[in-house]
C-alpha cells in the first residue's frame, strides 16, 4: 500500500457533532502548527493547521460542530458548504477536502451515526474517528470499530484524542483514503417508493447530495422519511444500548443533582461567577507588581537625552508596558472562562439562565457568546453564529460590546487601584476595591439587559426559533489543553499589544512631542514639560474636544486618553502612561502611573484632577462607550452592513456620556 515516493500533501477536513472532541483531535494532529485565529474559543469558523506524516505536511481543517448537513445556523452552513458545494467561493478552484474525517463520540453513537450517514452521501472519501473510547469502556459500553466499518463501508479508527491515542493511525488511514479517492456507497434505505424516486435520478457521476436536495425541495414529507431511514440505519450499528449509555452519565448526573438543583443551582452559579471574579482581581496582583517594576526599570535604563531614546522609553515602553502589566489578570480570566467552558459547566449555566433571558428576547444559547464577550467581544460576536434564530442572533451581537471585556480591565484596575481606598469588610474577606470592580461588571450586564429590553419593546413580535442546547457529560480538560489555550491566548494578547498598542503608543508619543516647543526662559523642568505637552498636536486635539467633556470633569489630558482609546480601550492606559511621563519630564519620572495620576492638578485651581466624582464618571463612561475598532469591524462583517455598528456607536457612546454626567452629579451631591 505504501510507495517509497513521497506522497502529495492532502487536505483533511474534521467534522462531527458538537462536543465530540474535534478540536482536541485537531490540536493533537497539528500541535502548535496551526494558524492561530487571534481568538480561541468554541469553533465557529474553520481553523487550519498542518499534520506531518512521513515527512509530508498535510493540511488539516477544523470545522464547527454540526448536527446535520441540512444547516440550521450559520456555523453549520460553513460545514455544509465545504462538503456539499466544494467551498464558499465558486469562483476559486475547488475548495473541497481530499478526505473527510468524521469524529464520532463512542458513547453517543445513534445521533453521531445519523450525521455520518449524511457525510457519506457527499461523495467525498470518508474515514471515521471513533473518539472517547476510554469513556465508553469505563461505562461498560462495548464499542466495536469493526461493526462501524461493516455498517458504513469506510475505515474506522479508535481514538482517545485527549490522550493522543490512535492519532497516527488515523492520519495514515485518512491519507490513504485521500489517495484512493473512492466515494462511499449508500448503506441506508428509504421506503420503496422513495427508493424508486431516488434511483430514477441518480446519475453515477454526481454525488447523491444534490439529488437528495432536489427530492427534499419537491416533496414536503421527504425529509422526515429520509431522517427516519437514516436513524434506522444507525440502529443497525448501535443496537439496544440505551441502558448502558445511562452508565456514562452517572458521574455527571450526580454533579448535576447539585449544580442544577432548583435552589442550590442558581446559588452555585452566583458563587462560581463570584469566585472567578475574585481570582481575576486578587490572585494576579503579585505577578503584576513584579512586571510593573521590571518595565519601569527597563524604561529607566533606556531613557536618555537623544530623541530615539525618549521615543523608546517614554513612547514604546511606557505605552506597551502599561498594558502588558495586565497579562497575569488576562490569563487568569481566560483560564477561568476556559475551564468553565471545557468542563461543560457553561451549558448548565445556560440552562439555568434560559428563562430570565427569554424575557429579554434571548435564550440560553445566547449566554455562551455573551460569556465569551467577558473575555473579548470579537469571539463573542462570532460565536453568535451558532444561534439559529436571526433576530436573537442580531440582538446578541448588538449587546455583546456592553459585557465587560478584558480590555476594560486595565482601565478599571488602574483607576480603582489609584483612587478607590482599600477598605476591608467582613474581617478582611471583602474589599471595597473588589466590590467596585464587581459593581462595574454588573453595570455592564445591566446596561446590556436594558438595551435588550429596549430593542424588544421596539420590535414587532414574531415567531421564534427553538433554543435547543445539548448538555454534554462533565469532562475534565487535560493539562495539555489548558496549557495550549493559555499559550495561544497569551500569544494573542502580546501580539495585539506588540502591534496595535505599540503603534498607538508611538503615535501618541509623537503627537505629544511634536511640534517641539522651546520652554520660556527660566522655566523649571516641570513647567517646560507642561508647556511642551500643551503645544503639541495631542494637546491641541485635547483642547479642541475639551468643551464636550468638561461637564464630565475631564481635563484635556484625559480627553486625549479617551480619544486614543476609541481604537482599543486599553490604549487609554498606554496613552496616560505616555502623557504623564512626557508631562512629568525625564527627571521626575515615577515608575508608577498611579502616583503620577494622583499628583495631577488643575493649573488654575490647584485642585486634584482625579477627584472621586471625576474618577467615577470616567469609569461610568468606559462601562458603556463603544471603543474598539476590532469590535466595530467584526460586527459589520457578521451582520453584513455598517448600520449595526453605527447604531451601537451612537447609542452606547451617547449613553456613556449621559451616564458619566449623571454619575458625576450624583457623586458631587452625595458629597464626593
Amino acid at each position: 500500500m505504501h510507495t517509497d515516493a513521497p506522497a502529495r500533501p492532502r487536505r483533511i477536513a474534521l467534522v462531527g457533532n458538537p462536543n465530540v472532541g474535534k478540536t482536541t483531535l485537531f490540536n493533537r494532529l497539528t500541535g502548535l502548527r496551526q494558524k492561530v485565529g487571534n481568538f480561541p474559543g468554541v469553533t465557529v469558523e474553520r481553523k487550519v493547521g498542518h499534520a506531518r506524516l512521513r515527512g509530508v505536511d498535510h493540511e488539516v481543517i477544523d470545522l464547527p460542530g454540526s448536527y446535520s448537513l441540512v444547516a440550521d445556523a450559520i456555523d453549520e452552513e460553513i460545514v455544509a458548504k465545504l462538503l456539499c458545494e466544494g467551498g464558499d467561493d465558486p469562483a476559486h478552484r475547488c475548495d473541497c477536502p481530499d478526505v473527510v474525517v468524521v469524529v464520532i463520540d463512542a458513547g453517543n453513537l445513534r445521533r453521531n451515526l445519523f450525521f455520518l450517514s449524511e457525510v457519506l452521501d457527499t461523495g467525498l472519501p470518508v474515514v471515521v474517528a471513533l473518539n472517547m473510547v476510554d469513556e465508553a469502556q469505563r461505562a461498560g459500553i462495548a464499542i466495536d470499530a469493526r461493526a462501524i466499518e461493516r455498517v458504513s463501508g469506510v475505515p474506522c479508527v479508535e481514538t482517545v484524542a485527549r490522550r493522543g491515542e490512535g492519532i497516527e493511525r488515523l492520519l495514515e488511514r485518512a491519507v490513504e483514503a485521500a489517495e484512493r479517492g473512492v466515494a462511499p456507497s449508500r448503506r441506508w434505505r428509504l421506503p420503496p417508493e422513495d427508493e424508486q424516486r431516488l434511483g430514477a435520478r441518480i446519475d453515477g457521476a454526481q454525488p447523491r447530495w444534490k439529488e437528495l436536495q432536489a427530492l427534499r425541495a419537491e416533496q414536503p414529507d421527504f425529509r422526515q422519511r429520509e431522517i427516519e431511514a437514516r436513524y434506522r440505519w444507525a440502529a443497525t450499528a448501535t443496537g439496544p444500548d440505551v441502558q448502558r449509555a445511562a452508565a456514562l452519565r452517572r458521574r455527571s448526573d450526580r454533579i448535576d443533582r447539585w449544580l442544577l438543583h432548583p435552589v442550590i443551582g442558581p446559588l452555585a452559579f452566583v458563587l462560581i461567577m463570584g469566585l472567578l471574579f475574585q481570582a481575576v482581581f486578587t490572585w494576579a496582583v503579585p505577578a503584576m507588581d513584579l512586571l510593573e517594576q521590571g518595565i519601569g526599570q527597563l524604561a529607566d535604563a533606556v531613557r536618555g537625552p537623544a530623541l530615539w531614546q525618549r521615543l523608546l522609553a517614554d513612547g514604546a515602553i511606557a505605552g506597551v508596558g502599561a498594558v502588558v502589566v495586565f497579562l497575569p489578570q488576562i490569563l487568569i480570566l481566560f483560564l477561568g472562562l476556559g475551564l468553565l467552558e471545557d468542563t461543560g459547566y457553561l451549558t448548565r449555566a445556560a440552562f439555568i439562565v434560559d428563562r430570565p433571558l427569554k424575557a429579554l428576547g434571548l435564550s440560553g444559547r445566547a449566554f455562551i457568546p455573551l460569556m465569551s464577550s467577558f473575555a473579548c467581544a470579537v469571539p463573542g460576536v462570532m460565536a453568535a453564529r451558532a444561534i439559529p434564530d436571526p433576530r436573537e442572533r442580531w440582538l446578541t451581537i448588538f449587546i455583546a460590546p456592553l459585557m465587560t471585556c478584558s480590555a476594560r480591565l486595565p482601565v478599571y484596575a488602574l483607576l480603582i487601584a489609584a483612587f478607590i481606598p482599600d477598605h476591608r469588610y467582613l474581617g478582611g474577606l471583602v474589599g471595597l476595591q473588589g466590590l467596585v470592580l464587581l459593581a462595574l461588571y454588573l453595570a455592564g450586564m445591566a446596561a446590556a439587559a436594558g438595551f435588550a429590553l429596549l430593542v424588544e419593546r421596539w420590535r414587532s413580535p414574531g415567531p421564534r426559533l427553538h433554543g435547543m442546547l445539548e448538555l454534554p457529560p462533565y469532562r475534565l480538560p487535560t493539562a495539555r489543553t489548558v496549557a495550549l489555550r493559555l499559550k495561544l491566548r497569551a500569544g494573542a494578547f502580546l501580539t495585539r499589544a506588540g502591534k496595535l498598542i505599540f503603534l498607538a503608543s508611538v503615535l501618541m508619543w509623537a503627537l505629544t512631542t511634536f511640534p517641539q516647543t522651546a520652554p520660556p526662559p527660566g522655566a523649571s523642568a516641570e513647567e517646560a514639560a507642561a508647556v511642551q505637552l500643551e503645544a503639541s498636536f495631542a494637546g491641541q486635539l485635547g483642547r479642541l474636544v475639551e468643551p464636550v467633556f468638561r461637564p464630565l470633569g475631564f481635563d484635556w489630558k484625559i480627553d486625549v486618553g479617551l480619544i486614543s482609546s476609541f481604537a482599543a480601550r486599553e490604549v487609554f492606559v498606554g496613552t496616560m502612561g505616555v502623557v504623564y511621563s512626557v508631562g512629568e519630564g525625564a527627571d521626575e519620572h515615577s515608575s508608577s502611573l498611579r502616583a503620577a495620576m494622583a499628583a495631577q492638578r488643575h493649573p488654575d485651581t490647584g485642585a486634584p484632577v482625579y477627584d472621586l466624582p471625576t474618577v467615577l464618571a470616567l469609569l461610568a463612561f468606559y462601562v458603556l462607550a463603544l471603543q474598539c475598532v476590532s469590535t466595530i469591524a467584526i460586527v459589520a462583517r457578521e451582520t453584513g452592513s455598517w448600520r449595526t455598528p453605527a447604531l451601537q456607536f451612537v447609542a452606547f457612546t451617547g449613553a456613556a456620556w449621559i451616564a458619566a454626567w449623571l454619575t458625576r452629579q450624583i457623586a458631587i451631591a452625595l458629597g464626593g
Partner: protein
Amino acid sequence: MDGVIADHSATLDQLATGESAVVAGVNGAGLSRRRLLEMGFVQGTPVRLVRRAPLGDPLELDVAGYRLSLRGEVAAHIHVRRRG
C-alpha cells in the same frame, strides 16, 4: 411540512420528572420540527424527562442516551406514549 397526530397520547412537556416515554410523532410545522427530527425525536425513540430548570423552564430530556435542553413550548409539539 406539517404533521398532525390524531390520537390522545401525552406531549413531552406533560411528563412527570423522571418519567419515561416513547416518541409517537412530532406535531407542528417548519424548521423546528425538522430540527427535532434530526436531533433524534423520530417515532419509537425512548425519551425521559430528567428535570426542569430551577425556574420551571427549559426541560432537560434524555433522548436515547444524550441530554438535550428544550423549552416547554417546543416539547409540547412532541407526542409520546407513556411507559408503564
